[in-house]
């Protein structure tokens, strides 16, 4: 079986007047259909940078080299119009700050329908029906009313679900979730993660889940890639990472997490 997305020695550097700053130094990994790959790393480790580079949404100050193949097609060097057709269509993406990701001056319905119009030739009526169906599927109450709301009138969790809805409504082959749980509260985080697990089960998409949170990753990811300062330092399933990771940086992340878990268990048992 062919991998849905395959990165091979992908490099990104920031080109400025004085020097070239290497941000991603040759990253290689791949993700299969129906599989969820977790990318773990701190902010600045290059995890969302490498995804953005593959999708062609970095501006021209960044130099991208290496290879990124989507369903066997090379993405690097593709024209921006071709990439645009893939984004939001075959490749869905969910970003981390739902509240700032929607244009504050337009109603939600408008922003959903402009996305549909960019990829399908649907009439106004069909767009509206599909928007409502999509919101229903995302378990949002009163979808008709929500379509008429402005982004600031909705909660972060709701907007995040709308984002997931938009990303999945085009039946993508690949869904990239870039820190989707960082900016929202704990209970909504739980719901969003469940949503993603459901999508993975029902839609048979390949999913890439980017996070610095080992807990969140462990809930959805089948396989984990650990990035540190632009290079892959560890790879394997959750069990492997927890018990057999050799990289000191990975160990540090794991110890922090197990430490939190230990205290949490202690607290549950009544002692502090």
């Amino acid at each position: 079986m062919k991998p849905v997305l395959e990165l091979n020695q992908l490099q990104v550097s920031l080109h400025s007047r004085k020097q070239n700053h290497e941000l991603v130094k040759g990253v290689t990994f791949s993700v299969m259909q129906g599989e969820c790959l977790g990318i773990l790393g701190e902010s600045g480790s290059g995890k969302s940078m490498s995804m953005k580079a593959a999708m062609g949404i970095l501006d021209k100050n960044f130099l991208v080299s290496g290879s990124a193949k989507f369903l066997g097609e090379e993405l690097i060097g593709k024209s921006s119009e071709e990439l645009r057709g893939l984004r939001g269509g075959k490749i869905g993406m969910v970003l981390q700050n739902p509240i700032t990701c929607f244009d504050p001056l337009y109603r939600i319905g408008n922003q959903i329908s402009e996305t549909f119009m960019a990829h399908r030739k649907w009439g106004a009526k069909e767009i509206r029906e599909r928007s409502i169906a999509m919101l229903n599927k995302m378990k949002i109450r009163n979808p008709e009313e929500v379509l008429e709301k402005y982004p600031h009138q909705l909660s972060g969790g709701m907007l995040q679900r709308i984002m997931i809805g938009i990303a999945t409504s085009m039946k993508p082959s690949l869904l990239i979730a870039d820190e989707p749980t960082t900016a929202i509260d704990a209970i909504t985080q739980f719901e969003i993660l469940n949503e993603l697990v459901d999508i993975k089960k029902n839609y048979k998409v390949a999913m890439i889940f980017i996070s610095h949170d080992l807990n969140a990753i462990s809930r959805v990811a089948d396989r984990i890639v650990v990035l540190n300062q632009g290079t892959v330092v560890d790879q394997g399933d959750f069990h492997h990472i927890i018990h057999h990771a050799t990289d000191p940086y990975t160990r540090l992340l794991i110890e922090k997490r197990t430490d939190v878990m230990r205290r949490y268990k202690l607290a549950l048992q009544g002692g502090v």
Partner: protein
Amino acid sequence: MKRYVIRRLLLAIPLLFAISFICFMFINLIPSNPAEVALRVQQMPVITEEAIAEMEEMLGLNKPFFVRYLDWLVGCLQGDFGISYVNPARTVAGEILRSLPATLQLAGASFVIVIVLSIPIGFLCAIYKDGWFDRIMRGAVFVTTAMPPYWVGLLLMWAIGVKLGWLPTNGNGTWQHLILPAFTVGLSYISTYIRLIRNNMLENMKQDYVLYANVRGLPQKSIWVKHVLKNSMHTCIVAMGMSIPQLISGTIVVENVFSWPGLGTLCISSIFNRDYPVIQTYVLLIGVLFVVFNLVFDILQTVSDPRLRKEN
């Protein structure tokens, strides 16, 4: 929302009072006796005590200060701004009204030129950032902000009016007469707004909503026009609206260069003739316009922003 508008309106009232008071003070701060000045200006051969007293009586100068202020204020509200020193047969209101249309015409035309030129140029500079167009425009903006408007007027007058003979250089009447002075008035504002729109759009392009619009695969044109331009215009519209009174006051110099028979020409000749009531009314008019335009565009901005507008 309603409360905000009312609060803004109420806050404007003391400001209007302060402005009117300063304008009134202005005529009372003249080092010499206004009645005497009025007589001198009318070229009375011998200025006698009686003549001064008579003039004081006529101008109402013998009443206490605050009574005079109130009288004047009430007069202003009724459209009576007093009489011209130079020609007592003429009212100030009449003088101003006679020159106002020409100035409004000029300011209006230059506002249109400013909008028509600065928005597209600023937009193109932003989307082709660091390209050749952006570089040329940035240079042009830098130089034009350092150019005194009257010199620009002279250059245009000579190059386009005299040398090429395309447009008339003096007087008014037709739309051809309007182009050169209107462009001269607008030039410094054009460069200001090109810079404002460009920087504002670049700032907006860094926002998450643009990234997300790209992620959703929206057409590039739609991202630029529908999202980035609209969001930037939102901020720039206030600055543009508030520049209208400045455009009107900016005509003062340019009118002089192009012999445009408007408020500016009236104001300058009044300064030379020491016709204080005319100057006073002119300053009052511009001050009030300033406050009113500030108010209107501030409220407009609030109304047009869904985040600030409360929907019930």
